[in-house]
């Protein structure tokens, strides 16, 4: 028995070292600032990467951008509960983009990391709390998101060894509007396939969104939905496909800032098919949040 335990112990040490390396990598590559936040605001923006592109431009209008790439409604609910307990939140802007209730988002999210914002009260029993926060939350081997990020990183490194990375070229280096139209359509189609893998929406995510609405209602928080601007290529690819998060808001009489088609003729505002670049983000924030936090819809701004 002693030698068995000893062998297991040594093997475990090896695994722990690998785990530390992975954790270091993931912090350096992706999640380093996931836990960063400010509690000094009374208005917050919760969204996925669409919100991230707005950077901190919103702060001068009193809105803290608490968005993170791949955040799902599960993660946003955790963040909202955290804000309720630690800040004086009175207004919440939240994404209601067409894809937010996708099965894809149910699988690809930040659940492993948003446990940071949880308390035992968020779970049905203490076992789940400990498991999620201290086992999954701390051990990279149990984090599916971590493995996806590292895998993608390794792939891109291998790719760049052999040829120029197409994704980096399209997404980061070449401005979106300078890319050939055919390539833009192709990228949009790829993105569409990823975000809309099935006809059915995620019932789990829908449940979380409804819980967010109820929490806001119960705590007298003004809840406003936002649909972020999309490029014309992506809008054409989308057609009328949506998982209808926006409908849920409208049915409950909640405001929705529908900015999906806001920059339909301004490709220069986009970093890629569905994300604003810095210039676009700045203009967007100026247009939406400048005058008032309680604007009713984008069209109103446009008409102004």
């Amino acid at each position: 028995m002693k030698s068995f335990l000893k062998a297991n112990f040594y093997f475990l040490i090896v695994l722990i070292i690998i785990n530390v390396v992975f954790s270091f990598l993931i912090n350096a590559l992706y999640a380093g600032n996931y836990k960063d936040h400010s509690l000094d605001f009374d208005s917050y923006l919760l969204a996925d990467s669409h919100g991230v592109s707005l950077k901190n431009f919103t702060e001068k209008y009193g809105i803290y951008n608490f968005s993170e790439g791949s955040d799902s409604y599960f993660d946003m609910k955790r963040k909202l509960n955290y804000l309720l307990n630690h800040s004086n939140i009175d207004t919440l802007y939240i994404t209601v983009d067409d894809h937010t209730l996708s099965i894809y988002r149910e699988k690809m999210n930040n659940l492993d990391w948003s446990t940071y914002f949880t308390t035992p009260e968020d779970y049905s029993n203490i076992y789940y709390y400990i498991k999620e926060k201290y086992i999954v939350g701390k051990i990279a081997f149990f984090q599916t998101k971590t493995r996806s990020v590292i895998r993608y990183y390794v792939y891109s490194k291998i790719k760049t060894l052999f040829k120029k990375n197409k994704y980096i070229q399209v997404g980061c280096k070449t401005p979106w509007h300078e890319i050939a139209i055919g390539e833009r359509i192709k990228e949009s189609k790829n993105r569409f396939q990823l975000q809309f893998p099935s006809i059915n929406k995620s019932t789990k995510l829908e449940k979380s969104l409804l819980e967010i609405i109820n929490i806001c209602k119960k705590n007298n928080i003004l809840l406003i939905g936002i649909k972020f601007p999309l490029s014309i290529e992506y809008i054409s690819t989308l057609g009328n496909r949506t998982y209808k998060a926006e409908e849920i808001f409208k049915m409950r009489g909640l405001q929705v800032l529908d900015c999906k088609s806001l920059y339909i003729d301004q490709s220069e505002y986009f970093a890629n098919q569905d994300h604003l670049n810095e210039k676009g983000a700045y203009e967007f924030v100026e247009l939406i949040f400048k005058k008032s936090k309680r604007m009713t819809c984008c069209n109103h701004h446009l008409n102004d």
Partner: protein
Amino acid sequence: MVFNSIDFAIFLPVVFIFYWFITNRSLKLQNLFLVFASYFFYSCWDWRFLSLIAFSTIIDYSVGCRLGKEEKETKRNFLLCVSILVNLGFLGYFKYYNFFLDNFIAAFSFFGHKISHNSLNIILPVGISFYTFQTLSYTIDVYKKKLEPTKDFIAFAAFVSFFPQLVSGPIERATHLLTQFYTKRTFDYSKAVDGMRQILWGLFKKIVIADNCANFANQIFENSASMNGSSLVLGALFFTFQIYGDFSGYSDIAIGTARLFGFDLMRNFAFPYFSRDIAEFWRRWHISLSTWFRDYLYIPLGGSRGGPWLKVRNTFIIFIVSGFWHGASWTFIFWGALNAVYFLPLLLTNNNRRNMNIVARGKILPTLKELIQIFLTFGLTVFAWIFFRAEDVGHAFQYIQGIFSNSLFTLPDIYGMNEALMTMFFVGLFVLIEWKGREGQYAIENINTVVRRFNRWSFYLCIILVIYFFGNYSENIEFIYFQF
């Protein structure tokens, strides 16, 4: 609590520590602890069904005790009937009630009689088909006086509910497993290490092979009407490896876990896809079920003795019952019957025991003849799996029709082709490793012959990293055999 979950990764070491360090002072205490751990394990699915296991345990224990004392044939028969009725009654109610009801109604409707009915919303208790057969084997063996009835209730309860094999087998015999609960277990280093290795290999089969194949098998079977012929062939192949990786992976984890606690479970799979004929395939696939049916159904029916008609009848019975055991659906019955059709020519020409040894033993490659035989058998098996996986018999025929269309010779067109290619790469690698290790109990058993620990550990780490980076962690992919 499934084997490939964090819950099980916590549960297993906790049970291991309690078992070897706290309850090891007394055999009774150790067995009692195993019962407690197994009941807890099962309750993680649905605690309400624990009562079924407990009831089945009490009935079969009592029947066993009475059979041990009773000499009168009529009373012995009665006692056996009680055990069979209770066990098969549970199974019949939970698994087959709606199937029989719906088919009776359909049959009456066919003859113009309209009957109103309500199908019951019955939840199938996990693993009921497995533990029912296990307890039945005990009563039948005691009845046949092959086994002394146990007087140790705790040992018997541990035998019925032993958590590694409770929900998906291997279906153990009392003569093999129950007796292991009578003797004090001592920790065996090489056995425990071997167990760990087998668990690791089982996880690889489940998470990397089965669950990745499941993604594409599901996609293709669910959209078969719009798929071209080559995609449909690919779908059938994906399912072939899914079901093997899934079920044999589960068995490996179960056997490996049992070894950590000092138990030996029977082998359930012996590289079935390298079989040279269907008879060999059935000696290598789900061995614990095949031998159960052989011993408790086929042989009592007369087996292969008697005339050709009797042979045909018995073969069809055993294969159809085996198919029906898998689920209350005509697809499983068709699958069973199709295998009977495959098997019969071998039986009738007395060629069913032709390939008893390991293929190409001691050689790197098989002969051309063996290779052709393996491919033919594999092809027949893949074809039969279509019935097993299809939603209904009509779907299976539509699927087959789709395969044999002009589009068979076009390129496969499935969503996520890059991922599919990666899965195929791992399946290819898996087949190579299985071929290399086919003379062992499981594919990587012989890694222990590698002298340097560094090399062995590097190999284990590679498997762990492959599981981590290329495994499929979707929540909704359960072990296929849980539904049986």
